[in-house]
């Protein structure tokens, strides 16, 4: 029977669910006074099963098993609830929580490939909740990450703890996942601007530090895992965003582009419907449309997206879900400005023969993502999980008349992969995870000249991994090991072994020390290796590019203390990472050409670099109404060859924020970011782009107000309220003061 179940998992990842059996736990979570508690995490310990309570405090969990389970409930401001239940039928279990000032007990899955309480994980991890996403009127992923301590956002590129500089849109050193599946296709120029409609996101987990021991190459600089909502009861939600960019105050800037005085607005709408599909099958479907006029010339975008998720249970042992994303986007990409005196216009390379600005590229992009996941319970102690991912993207350039060019002038990329993961739970504090993963990648790009001389780059990869988690008394330990093998265009195979060891020790009741050591690596992206083009900048391929590797250690302390007026939480971490063969672009004499006067950019391996630093995050909960936090990150980086700091790393990052809940209906808050200018920048880029070395410290303040009604929520934000002009990445000015009104209407559902 177990073998049959295992085969089902392997062979039928898109199994069509039919009338299902199994059991359900449902109920309402309230405070001692009987007030329903929305946003509480209710989950079955050590299983991939859980739910978040809705506005009326209700929850519903479909169980794929019977027998003894431990049900856990946690929410900020209340004591953790834990109960052992024997499941032999559907069960109604209401939960009453005792109020106390307590540290957040958020759930994360990224650190161990299974749900764990964030504070029990011996790693640095941040969680962006759905509540925060709504309050901050987050539209894009970079929007969400800007206020995470230790994370430096450079447009669509993310730098966690200085692992990456600015990569010129050729790849990401941070792994992006949706529901645990990697979704960065090989042709990605960075993180996609909009992954999912914001109301479909349950939370975003940010794992800081190399995650190669669990996730392989792409997790060199950290992990971002977007967790989608689990379909619950009937729900119909309409969410609208309306906003506008403020007018730049400098006459000289406005003079460079007549459109700067127009209303530069953006608008979006998403409708989501959720409900039962019969039996134990539930799902949600979301359609969204968005348009953005942009605050720079040739920087407009339009997007249509459909996203759906189906969750099903079959029998007592089989469960699964399928996430599908289909979308199209037409956008100008603003690549670099015309200069500090005309930052709203794209620049032109002085001696290029094109009349079109080189600093902007108009593209049409279509993407399909399909992620089926199946979990099969093999008795009380074992379960196996299989996940398949299919990614396809087609990027077509748009000519000056607005017509889409042929796909042969653009880029077509595929990624197809699957992973099988076996979990073993021995008692509740002992967990072993092992699995294998294979992926086939292929990208056909007009910018590529591969080792075969054609435009099709391939990078199939395979891996086996294992992680052992052990918790007893005061000690928690994690040991992980992963073996990866990558084949690059059939000409070269790269294999890496990535170990990681982490230990946590509870010094006091609310104080835990942790230490972790591990290695990371990253295989060069296809774009870094094969791009060979003269259209924007002269770029040469580098077939001898080697993987970049890292080895690091982190020591941390997590503590909470109840004061007379507040609960204080402190998370401090010191880290040291050594990087070898770091991949950075440089302006070099061509190695390939016979003409010695041929120069251009090329991605090369630097010899060695180190990044050491400090992360300090403090959170204060004053009663249940006020939460304030501040995070400071110190980065000290060094290129071993030159003794200089590594480029585009800011030495100081201070981020802070606060939210005050006034009664049951109003919230007000603010977020502040202060980031020093990079100590060094890439001077080669400045040869071509006017004022590309111009940076100022980032000093941005956002203000937000929220108003919650029974059937509607309204959130209004003013981002960059001081209208402080700055750049996050070279030669691209960041947004001025920006106003956003988000309205969320629940037209049907449990509130009725």
């Amino acid at each position, binding site marked *: 029977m177990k073998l049959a179940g295992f085969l089902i998992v392997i062979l039928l990842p898109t199994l069509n669910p039919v009338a299902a059996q199994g059991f359900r736990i449902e109920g309402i979570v309230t405070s001692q006074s009987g007030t329903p508690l929305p946003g509480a995490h209710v989950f079955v310990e050590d299983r991939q099963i859980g739910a978040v309570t809705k506005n009326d405090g209700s929850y519903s969990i479909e169980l794929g098993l019977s027998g003894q389970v431990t049900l856990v409930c946690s929410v900020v401001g209340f004591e953790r609830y834990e109960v052992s239940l024997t499941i032999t039928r559907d069960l109604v279990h209401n939960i009453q929580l005792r109020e106390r000032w307590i540290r957040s007990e958020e759930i994360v899955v990224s650190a161990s490939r299974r749900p764990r309480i964030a504070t029990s994980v011996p790693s640095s991890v941040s969680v962006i909740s759905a509540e925060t996403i709504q309050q901050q009127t987050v539209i894009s992923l970079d929007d969400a990450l800007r206020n995470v301590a230790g994370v430096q956002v450079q447009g669509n590129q993310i730098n966690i703890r200085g692992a990456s500089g600015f990569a010129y849109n050729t790849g990401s050193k941070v792994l992006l996942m949706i529901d645990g599946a990697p979704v960065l296709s090989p042709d990605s120029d960075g993180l996609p601007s909009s992954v999912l409609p914001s109301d479909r996101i349950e939370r975003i987990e940010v794992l800081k530090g190399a995650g190669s021991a669990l996730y392989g190459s792409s997790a060199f600089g950290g992990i971002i895992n977007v967790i989608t909502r689990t379909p619950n009861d009937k729900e119909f939600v309409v969410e609208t965003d309306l906003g506008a960019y403020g007018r730049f105050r400098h006459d000289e800037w406005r003079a460079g582009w007549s459109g700067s005085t127009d209303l530069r607005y953006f608008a979006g709408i998403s409708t989501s419907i959720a409900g039962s599909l019969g039996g134990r099958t539930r799902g949600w479907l979301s359609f969204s449309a968005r348009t953005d006029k942009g605050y720079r010339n040739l920087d407009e975008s339009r997007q249509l997206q459909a996203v759906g998720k189906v969750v099903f249970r079959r029998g007592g042992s089989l469960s699964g879900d399928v996430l599908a994303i289909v979308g199209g986007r037409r956008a100008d990409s603003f690549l670099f400005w015309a200069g500090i005196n005309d930052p709203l216009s794209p620049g032109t390379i002085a*001696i290029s023969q094109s009349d079109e600005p080189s600093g902007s590229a108009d593209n049409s992009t279509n993407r399909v993502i399909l992620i089926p996941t199946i979990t099969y319970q093999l008795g009380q102690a074992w379960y196996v999980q299989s996940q398949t991912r299919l990614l396809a993207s087609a990027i077509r350039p748009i000519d000056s008349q607005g017509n889409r060019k042929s796909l042969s002038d653009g880029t077509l990329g595929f990624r197809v992969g699957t992973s099988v993961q076996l979990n073993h739970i021995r008692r509740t504090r002992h967990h072993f995870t092992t699995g294998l993963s294979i992926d086939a990648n292929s990208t056909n790009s007009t910018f590529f000249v591969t080792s075969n001389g054609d435009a099709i780059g391939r990078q199939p990869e395979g891996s086996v991994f294992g992680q052992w988690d052990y918790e007893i008394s005061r000690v928690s330990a994690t040991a992980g090991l992963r073996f990866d093998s990558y084949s690059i265009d059939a000409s070269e195979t790269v294999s890496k072994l990535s170990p990681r060891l982490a230990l946590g020790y509870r010094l006091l009741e609310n104080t835990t020390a942790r230490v972790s050591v591990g290695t990371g690596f990253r295989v060069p992206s296809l774009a870094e290796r094969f791009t060979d083009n003269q259209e924007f900048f002269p770029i040469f391929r580098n077939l001898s590019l080697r993987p970049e590797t890292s080895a690091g250690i982190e020591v941390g302390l997590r503590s909470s203390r109840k004061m007379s007026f507040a609960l204080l939480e402190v998370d401090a971490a010191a880290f040291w990472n050594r990087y070898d063969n770091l991949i950075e672009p440089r302006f070099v004499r061509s190695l390939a050409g016979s003409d010695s*006067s041929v120069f*251009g950019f090329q991605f090369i391996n630097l010899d060695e670099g180190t990044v050491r630093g400090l992360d300090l995050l403090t959170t204060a909960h004053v009663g249940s109404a*006020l939460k304030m936090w501040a995070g400071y990150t110190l980065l000290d980086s060094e290129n071993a060859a030159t003794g200089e700091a590594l480029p585009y790393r800011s030495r100081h990052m201070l981020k802070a924020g606060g939210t005050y809940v006034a009664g049951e209906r109003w919230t007000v808050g603010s977020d502040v970011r202060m980031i020093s200018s990079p100590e060094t920048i890439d001077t080669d880029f400045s040869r071509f782009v006017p004022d590309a070395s111009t940076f100022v410290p980032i000093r941005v303040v956002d203000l937000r107000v929220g108003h919650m009604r029974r059937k509607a929520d309204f959130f209004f934000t003013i981002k960059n309220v001081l209208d402080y002009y*700055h750049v996050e990445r070279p030669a691209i000015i960041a947004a001025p003061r920006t106003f956003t009104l988000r309205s969320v209407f629940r037209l049907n559902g449990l509130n009725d």
Partner: protein
Amino acid sequence: MFLPHNNLRVGGFVLGLALFGLSCDGGLAPANNDSPAILSGTIMYSGTWPDVSEVQDLRFVALRFVPEDTADFLQLNRLEASNSLRYGVQSDTFVIRNIEPGLFPFNGVARRKTADLLSWSPLGLYLANDGIIELDAGDSIHVEMMVDLDNPPDFP
């Protein structure tokens, strides 16, 4: 006892102070308000033109620095370039508008020899006034220069 509402006042005060401090600096701003200059010129050619396949592009360029070699020459951010000039003519003219004022110590006609965007080298140098062109705010200066196609200047 430190009551929450007292704490709010302190928090508000600190936030207000932070906002005031932050608002003192507006961040990036235009580099200067000098009126742009205009540089125009007349170029007289003598000698035999190189084969057209070796003149992929031809422009008058004014450099804000003296290049040491080809790699050093390729600082496109520190030069002003005219539109493409005509091939095979005896004389030509150019106009470069909206130039940020400054000193240009190395000027002349440059050609791009191959399809490579960066394969530029000088075909003739502006030698009057010790080769220096100085543009002040609002200036409109016209220069004249000779290019001996049979004797291009040495260039590392």
